């Protein structure tokens, strides 16, 4: 796990968790540039589906193990936990 790429919320959520394959984490992934086919395939193997073309930021529902592996990719810049918002009334 490359903690330099994980934000506070995701770090806290991962802390103490066993690195299972359950897709428990909805995250944002930001890459250094749009993915090529090989990179896309690597992410899909780790459970990242529906990656938009020509985009450097996208979301995924993945496991803790996948977060760890993805954080090690040199072309991945950040991984952030997707938070819940509130209705504003």
């Amino acid at each position: 796990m490359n903690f330099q790429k994980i934000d506070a919320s995701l770090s806290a959520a991962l802390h103490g968790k066993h690195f299972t394959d359950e897709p428990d984490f909805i995250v944002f992934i930001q890459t250094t540039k749009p993915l090529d086919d090989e990179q896309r395939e690597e992410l899909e193997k780790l459970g990242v589906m529906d990656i938009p073309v020509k985009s450097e930021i996208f979301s995924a529902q993945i496991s803790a193990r996948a977060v760890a592996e993805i954080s090690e990719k040199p072309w991945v810049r950040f991984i952030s936990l997707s938070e819940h918002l509130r209705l504003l009334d």
Partner: protein
Amino acid sequence: MQGIMELCTAEYTANQVGKTVYVIAYGKHPHNRYEVELENTPSPVFVPRFQLTHKLLTGKLIELETKFAVFKSFSSDQQIGMVTVSDADGEHQIGVEQTPDFQIEAEIKKLLKKEIRYDKLSANLASIAHDYEKGGLTTVKASLVPVTPLSIPSVGGTPEAIIFIRCKEDAEINLNGVQVNSPQGEIRTAKISLDALETLSQDENIFQLDAAVKYSFLNDIAAEKTQLKNFRLQHPDLNGEGVIIGVIDSGIDSLHPSFAGRILSIWDQEIQGLGWQDENSPDKRWGKKSYGQVLTGEFLKVSIDKVGHGTHVAAIAAGDDEEFQGVAPGADLIIVKTSLNQAHIADGIEYIFSEADRLGRPAVVNLSIGSHLNAHDGTDFLSARIKDIYKRVTDGKIIVAAAGNEGNNNIRGAIVIPPKQTVELEFAILQNSAGFVPPWALFSGWYQGNTTCEISVRPPKGIATPYKGVSDTESPTQVSIVGNVIITITTPSVSASPNGDREIQIKLESVSKELPKGKWEIIIRNTGENEASLDIWSMVDERFKDAEFFPAFKRDDMKIGSPGCTGEVITVAAYTTRNRWIDAKNNDRPKNPFNVDTIWEGSSPGPLRNGSLKPDIAAPGVMIISALSSLSTPSEDTLINQKFVVKAGTSMACPFIAGLCALLLQRDQTLTADAIKTILRKNGQIPEKDPETHDIKWGYGLVDVAKL
């Protein structure tokens, strides 16, 4: 003539604009009717209102309310000695001259050449009738009298109005051009053609006819205060037709009559399904999402809105109903019922834009949602997704977001930590009015990336946790248990922050369901060579009282979270147009402690943490009556009737602007977000401020729709 006030004239000038006032009195004879006629010149900001106060020689005051030749009748056998005219420039007293009686009779005859019994008409209805008599359809169209609902045909036909009729209990009203809602009753409503007013008013069983102002749009105050009513009268063809309004929210009551036939689809993210896929854009730019279910047609009702928020919001933007009309009642709706997860919200925006592209139409997305778990500078990941989406859009794609409701909430703190120094930032955990204390609290803080701080937390009367510093190699999270509280401190590397600053996050969780009450301390030790300026926000469960910063650390700015802090979106503050309402049980609901006709105290202030100006504009958001979802269970005191409920917040202000964007896009489908922001900036107004002045609460002010 005994019993008839004499015709008189008066002239005055106000603000260097010449206005001529003709005061025509109403005498005791029912066929005599005097009108006040005002020739108005354009007013830069508001529609002029004039009140005439007639002071009798006895000293008694009689008030005439006038607006564009409309006034309340009064009778007097005294001469008018002095007329007081009030307008925005102040009060002006005018001496009047008397006019010989024969001229009075001539004026009366002139007025009575038609048969309408003006003595039976209310001021507003008389004004419309007078305009129609004078100049027909064109004059009525140009009239700025806000008699509503008034339907003006675009081609041929006569204008129609909804009116009240006060009549004999068993009066038979069976006339061409008059559709009465009930065959009996002393008070009835009717839809009438204005041509039928003559015959209707002559009916001896009818005593009074009143324009259905009270029965008009339940959002009437908001529409009036923003000049939306005037805009509608000037542009009756602009209603949002051809534009899509996307609402990402708690869903929608698709069976509510306000939306009949105009919900194109619902993507319900919370039910099992196959999701959707962009198959139409050349580069399939919107991709696909494999969760949730898209519903159309007869399957729309499968998705429900139990919360009621989404239904209320959608109707403000685009509801169409005789009792309520949204800002863009002709627009179509695409609904995303969201889980409120940031990633799913971003997916929802892509779905709406994908559908808009497929249909070749412009679209506005409404986001009446927010969070403070971010840096409040537009660098969070939802904001980043929105920026990325904007790289892929063409013109005519707009996103509107609510500013937030924390204007009065003590959720924002700040402290400066000199290099090599240790400081303590104090906050309190408090009980709510029911005596309950939050079970958890979350803090999100940011400071400069060119220094490093270590963080410790001390609960009330407890020992402090170990310090947690920044590490690039180890887990940045430390969990401590102090008493019955789990204290999680996370201090990630600066490399993990898109804005180059350092983030800290502190979570307090009670194992006994309630955090210890009292004073807590966040102890910050600056181990670096540079000063650290920490900005921090607190969050607790909405049912509980905020974790509040002590006065020395409390700040009243930078409370616009994400997505309101996204640069590309139009961020909307809330303006108070109403603080009372009548509920379904006819209770006059007491005033909330809101000041009316000003920015709502609870609207979150800007600017952003990086100094960028937000919010962008203000719109009515308190208290707003709009569609009720039949499956929701609002509190009784907010229920207006079986179809409408009152709510408040920047959630309600946001769809007002979304609807407005739809009207603008109907007029010009190529408008970009920047272009619309410019239009709004130029047409917002903060009282007593120069045009295009920005304020951290008002943005560029309350939008004046009539100027758009």
